[in-house]
């Protein structure tokens, strides 16, 4: 485990997840969210719970980095991005269940699902690009005398 790289990857993932969340959910999907005001907190209330939002992103970034490091030990952009797609698809399930039990619009469901897939794919690629552990297995080959 390369702790320094792990920490840098975690911070990079957190910054990206937070920024992407702000752009995708806070800006691009703002009008869609306004269609269901009863489901979401009012603006003033939302600011009061902002630390929870930050903490949520920290938790998400930390455990996603842990998963990437554990499941893609060889690192690499492509493999980690593929893993991110898998995690993003995992999020589609709870969103689908939320759609069934809460009065969400199909637009919100689609936006959340697509957002999660894009978010975790890019986050996985970032982590994979940063966390590349040094090769653990070095084979020493004795040179044959000429």
């Amino acid at each position, binding site marked *: 485990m390369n702790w320094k790289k792990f920490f840098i990857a975690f911070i990079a993932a957190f910054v990206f997840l937070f920024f992407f969340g702000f752009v995708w959910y806070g800006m691009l999907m703002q009008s869609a969210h306004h269609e269901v005001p009863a489901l979401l907190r009012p603006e003033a209330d939302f600011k009061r719970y902002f630390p929870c939002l930050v903490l949520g992103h920290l938790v998400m970034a930390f455990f996603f980095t842990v998963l990437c*490091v554990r499941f893609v*030990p060889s690192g690499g952009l492509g493999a980690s991005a593929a893993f991110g797609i898998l995690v993003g698809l995992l999020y589609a*399930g709870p969103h689908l269940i939320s759609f069934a039990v809460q009065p969400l619009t199909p637009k919100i469901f689609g936006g959340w699902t697509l957002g999660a897939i894009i978010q975790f794919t890019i986050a996985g690629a970032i982590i994979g690009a940063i966390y590349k552990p040094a090769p653990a297995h070095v*084979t020493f080959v004795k040179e044959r005398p000429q």
Partner: protein
Amino acid sequence: MKRFILAFFAAYIFIFFWGWLLNGVFLKDVYAETPNLWRPQSEMMSLFHWIIIGQALVVFGFVMIYASGFAGGGVRSGGKAWSSAGDCSDRNAPWILRSATDSRKTDSLRKYQRPGRDDYRRGAGRRDL
């Protein structure tokens, strides 16, 4: 593949049962306090198939991740399925941060450890192979 399907169905049954118990029984009263947040019962029933599909997606994704990182190693240990090799540099890391392929059961290096030598533990790797 057979085990994958079996694991999928076993996990699906558990997730479905647990979802029903937690959300439908234990938290029922809590949810009843916020009726404006939920669809009416009849509407929910008409969308029940989406709950089934959603849970199936969760289970499928979970089993896929498990199979890619843990398969062959039991509940707490790692195995190797799609990953190529274990990383022995993180042996002292906490369990949660250790490489998923770092397993006593599947670590090929341990098979070649010579009796009386602890080079491997000191990180000498495969130098003696």
